[in-house]
Every structure is written in C-alpha cells, then in structure tokens.
C-alpha cells in the first residue's frame, strides 16, 4: 500500500497527491509515468509524474476527474492509501541544451511539463512557456511555470484570464516572429498536442509530445497503448511516452482513445448509483 501524504485540489476537478513511494522517488525522471491501481477492483491507469522528492521519499501525481477511476481517486484523502503505485515507467524526456525550448501545456498537462521545464532550464535552455486552460478557474501552476520560464504566456479559451484563445495562436506568432526556437514540447489533450504539432510543422521545429493512450500493465506486455509513429507501430509505455509530434498518427490515437467509451459510461453510471450516501453528500458539497 502507498500512503497519500498530501492532497491538494488544484482546481475543482484536478487534484494533486503526494504519495509515499521512496524507491520510485529515487529513480523518477522528467517525462516518466507511474501506473496506479486504487484497490482490488480498480483498473491500472498511467499518470505522468509531476514532481518527486528523494529525501522525503514521495512522488507527486496530478490527475483530472474524467471517469470512474479518477472520480474514485478524487475521494481519497491524505492518510488514505493506494493499493499499487508502479514506476517509474517509460523513457524519460530527452534533456540537453537545445537553445530555446517552448513548453506548451494544456489543462492538466501543466503538471507533467513542470519538471521537464526545470530539467531543460538546468541544462542551460531558454524556456518560453505557454499555458492554456478552458477558463480561469481551471488554470493551475501558473506560478510554478513562471518561476522556471524566461517568458510565460497564459491563454484561456473563454478569455477569463490572460489572452483569449488557444495555445497554438501564441505558439504560431512566436515562431513567425523570428524568435529562434530549437524545440517545442507539448503536453495536454490529444487535440491540443495534434494542433501544436501541425502549427510547428511548417516551421520545421522539432516538437515532442507526451502521449497518454489507454494502458494496462505499462511495461510492454499487452500492446494496448500501441500508437503509429512514422508509419511504425510503437508501444507508448516502453518506446515513449514522448514521441516526435510530426510523426504521430493523430487520428489513430484519437480513435483508440475511444475504444471503451460505452464501457466507461456504464462503469461511471454504475459507480454513481452505488456510491455511498456520504460520498454523494461530498460530491454535492463540492459543486
């Protein structure tokens, strides 16, 4: 069992757990992920690490409530435990001195991009960050990204904070402005990463994306997470999760993420019907 040391509600539907996992904390590197299973009946889901503290023996994960597992996770509190916390898995993000790197984060993607930005900064890169969210109240870690960035641009889809619009607009302007950009890293929803890659492609700037397809074991055993990159099948769990965004077959990735839509709905509805009364009260109190 892995104890939750600390829980923070970053925004209403995005939460942070600091989990006691000393061995994982010792080995974690930016861009890697852990597989989490809540309990005996839970599924295994991958979550990219957001931070770790070797001294404290803790690993930080950030997740958004999107279905049964993440909704169940969100009900846990500091002091509760998670059955399984496996990692660090996947290949770390490639870090070297590129020159100028633009880190583009959308929604919950702000969490995994933070340690990557720090590592790139330490390697001597100039960091320009673009942080986007649907709305002001869904935005988090602006402060963290500001500290690591030489320049930070914030966008909201609805214009409630920062610049109105989506992340690809400032990204395109930046590239068009003549700013010498050596690499782009984009982490967020599939559609955001896809359009970041489409935006940078004409400028010929290498764009790394962190893919998060459905996984089971996370160690290369099942092939559930297969993605097509440059016409070749890759397993995101062991060959990634980082890939060259210009080579990714985005339509396939989107389609494969929809495999269990019906089951996810069924599972979530059942969970909602069966939740304990106090959980319902908790849910109400939250909204």
């Amino acid at each position, binding site marked *: 069992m892995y104890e939750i040391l600390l829980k923070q509600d970053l925004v209403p539907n995005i939460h942070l757990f600091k989990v006691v996992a000393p*061995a*994982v904390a010792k*080995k974690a590197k930016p861009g890697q992920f852990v597989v989490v*299973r809540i309990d005996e*009946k*839970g*599924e*295994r889901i991958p979550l990219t690490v957001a931070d770790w503290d070797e001294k404290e023996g803790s690993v930080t994960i950030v997740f958004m409530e999107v279905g*049964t*597992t993440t909704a*169940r996770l969100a009900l846990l509190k500091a002091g509760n435990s998670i*059955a*399984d*916390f*496996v*990692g*660090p*898995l996947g290949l770390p993000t490639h870090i070297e001195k590129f020159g100028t790197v633009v880190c583009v984060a959308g929604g919950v993607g702000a969490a995994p991009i933070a340690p990557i930005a720090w590592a790139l900064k330490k390697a001597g890169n100039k960091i320009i960050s673009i942080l986007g969210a649907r709305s002001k109240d869904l935005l988090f870690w602006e402060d963290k990204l500001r500290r690591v960035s030489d320049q930070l641009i914030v966008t909201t889809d609805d214009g409630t904070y920062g610049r109105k619009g989506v992340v690809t607009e400032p990204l395109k302007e930046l590239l068009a402005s003549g700013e010498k950009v050596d690499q782009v890293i984009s982490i967020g929803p599939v559609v955001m990463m896809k359009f970041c890659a489409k935006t940078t492609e004409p400028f010929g700037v290498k764009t790394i994306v962190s893919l998060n397809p459905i996984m*089971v*074991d996370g*160690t*290369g*055993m*099942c*092939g*559930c997470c*297969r993605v*097509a990159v440059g016409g070749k*099948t890759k397993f995101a769990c*062991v060959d990634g999760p980082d890939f060259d965004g210009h080579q990714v077959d985005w*339509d*396939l990735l989107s*389609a*494969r993420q*929809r*495999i*269990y839509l019906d*089951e*996810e709905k*069924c*599972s979530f509805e*059942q*969970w909602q019907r069966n939740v304990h009364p106090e959980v319902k009260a908790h849910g109400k109190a939250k909204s």
Partner: protein
Amino acid sequence: MAKLNLNRVEMPRQEPKVRGKNFNEVALGYSLEQAKEEASRCIQCPKRPCTEGCPVNVEIPDFIKAINDGDMPEAVRILKSKNALPGICGRVCPQETQCEATCSLAKKEAPIAIGRLERFVADWERANMPKAKSPSPKPKSGGKRVAVVGSGPAGLTAAADLAKMGHSVTIFEALHVAGGVLMYGIPQFRLPKEIVQAEVDYVASLGVKIELDSVVGKLVTIDELLNNGYQAVFLGTGAGLPMFLNIPGENLNGIYSANEFLTRVNLMKAYRFPEYDTPVKIGKKVAVIGGGNVAMDSARCALRLGADEVYIVYRRSEEEMPARREEVENAKEEGIQFKLLTNPKQFLGDKQNWVVGMECYEMELGEPDESGRRRPVVKPGSEFVIDVDEVIVALGTTPNPLIASTTPGLETTKHGTVVADEETGKTKKDKVWAGGDIVTGAATVISAMGAGKLATADIDKFLRG
C-alpha cells in the same frame, strides 16, 4: 473423446453447454475413490520412466503408491518435496508428452493419469491440511541473499528451492500480484486463481519475500541488486512481449494481443465488469489468430464473455497445432469453430476505426520447414473476407527487452532471449542465472519450473563455494 482409453478413470467435467457460459473450472477433479482406483492401475515398475519424464523429477510411483495406500499426507509430502506448485502442474502440465508419455502402460493401454492424480493430491492438501506445514528450515548459508526476478513458474520454483536450501530469497514482481503468466495468462476456468494464490502463499511460507509492483530494469537494475547485498540473481521474467502480424489494419479498435485480452480478463477480472473497473470488449464474431494454448484460452474466454461465434484462425492444419490435444477438444466441444489453413492478409475497418472484417488467404502445406512442420504456402488468388468485430492475435511472445537493455554483460540472442547454460542456467554475466521462457522463448510451465530447479542447484553450489 474417442482418443482416451477407457481403461483410465475419467475425470468429471462441466458439460460443454453449461461451461461455455461461466468461468468456473471445467475439469472437476477426482473423488478419493476415483483417485484410488486410478492409482491402483500403477504397476510400480522398477524402471520408473515417469520420473525421468518429469522435468522436476517428481517421485511419481511413490506418491501414487501413497494414494493407493490411502496415506494422503504421505502423498502430499512426496509430491511437494520436488514440486512446490502441484495444484498448478496437475492442471496445466502437458503430461501427455512428458511423464504420461513415458509411462510403461502407455505402450499397452492408457498411461496412468498422473496429472489428474497430482491435481487430486494438491487439492486434497488444500482442503484437508489448510495450514501448509513448512519443511524444517535448513541451516542458513551464512546470510546469503538471492534476488529472483519474476514470480512466474520459473521464479516461484527457484525461490522455493533456494529457500528450502536455507538461503534468504526475495522475489521482485512487476505486476500487483505474484504468479506471472499463471495469473495474467491462463484463464480461471483452466487454472483457478485461488489455487495459484495458495501455491504462491506456500512459497512465501518458506520464508520467501515477495516485492510486488517492482519493475526490475526501471525501479532497480540487476547491477544495483548485486551491489546492494544480493550475492546472486535468478532471472525468470518469461516472455512477456506480444508478437503481432504486422499487416495492414492491425491497430484498428477491437484488435487485441492475446496478452492484453487475457490480462484484462484474468488479471483485471474484466469478466466481472462493471463490478471490477477494467472493461474488455465483447465481440459478436471473434477471430483468434494462432493455434497454441494461448489461442485456445483466448477463444474460450471470448465465448464465455458472450460472443456468438468464435473462430480459431490458423495457417496450418490441425495436426500441426501446438496446443494441447485436450484443449483443442475442449474448445471444439464448446463450439469454437476452426478455420484452418487460413492466414490473415489484412484487417478491414470502418470509419470509426473499428475492425469489421479480415481478408484472409487460403493456405496449403508445402515442404517441412526448420520446425519440422510442413510450411504453409499461400494459394494464389484465394483471398476471401471473414466478418469479425473483434480479433485476438495469439501468435506467441518474446522476452521483454527491459532487463537485457539495462544489464551490461548479459548476452542475448537475436530473438531477445538470454543466453544461459543448458545444464546450470548460468548466464554470461557474473552472479546471474536465468531460466524459463526468458531463455527458451515461450514454452511450458513445467519446463520453466525445471529450468528454475536446475539453476538453483548451481546457485546453491556457488553460494556455498
């Protein structure tokens, strides 16, 4: 079932129509009377060819004699002194090509049903001697520690033997339960998980520590283990990487590797979705590609999940199928349809990326290939389409490169298997042994156990040397 000689005591099984709708065990096991009757057929021949035919050299005539004498605790003792996992082996070993094939009666009438008797003894112990009595611990070998990587059949056997020899053993397992392929691969109806768990618990009762959720190669490397207090390492990580056909359309939705499908169903208990959170797609027309035991397991799982039609699609004929005869018969009885001499050319999808069909070639058999089986050859112009909405690719597996790629000095073959001495399991790397599928490529539970046993003898010698 005309092939089975009537001289053998039949083992009761669930009726095909009934069992095709549940995940309960198909074979129900002998009663004490049935076991005694079967045991009484053993002629106790002096040459004991059955023991030689057993990869872990169980003293088969002795435990059969104990059954015949009605001394069940003695039967348990004899069996477990050589085999830590009898409930598992009694169910999934291919006895027909091992101990039973060498049985003296095999030449004249049906060989003794050694597997069924082994199963009976293991089940009797679980029911009647609930607290597995640990064998008396031997003197410690001066605080020597061994790391066993992987808790499948090879790892469990090696760990149990090393613990019995007095060594301090820790198993590192990547998944959240121990058992490896016995847990994630072989279905509940063929090998109930409670039995695997009981035998894992027995190994733990010998003093073996089991560290779950520990992916060696990521969380810790082999060199780190050796530099941090472990004097020897045994690698039993199996062959966990699924092979695909590499033909167009293979990434369509609804196409699974057998590993994924079986992991969802067995390990994550998707057959009890939504009580359990992990889902699995339930197709109406399911094609399973391959002719091995894993293909049979996948097909029979798909049927039990509620598929209308399940096909085994195999490029050779039934004669060349690597699956156990018994499993092929079980599958046929349950209504699995066999499309033989058929090989997929490509998968066809709809606009939403879901698989809707499979274009296949008809095949014919040519000259024998390097495996000794006749090579399947495409019949030109024979393409035809099978309608399917789910496909399970069961072509085999290769070792996961994770450990080899993070362990300098560990030599591997071009197939990704680890090079190890056949007699001792010793790899090219100092203090590291290996056995099971990681060395041989995908094979059987008992051969992995045999390899685990061979290596432990050499590890023990090294630790005491």
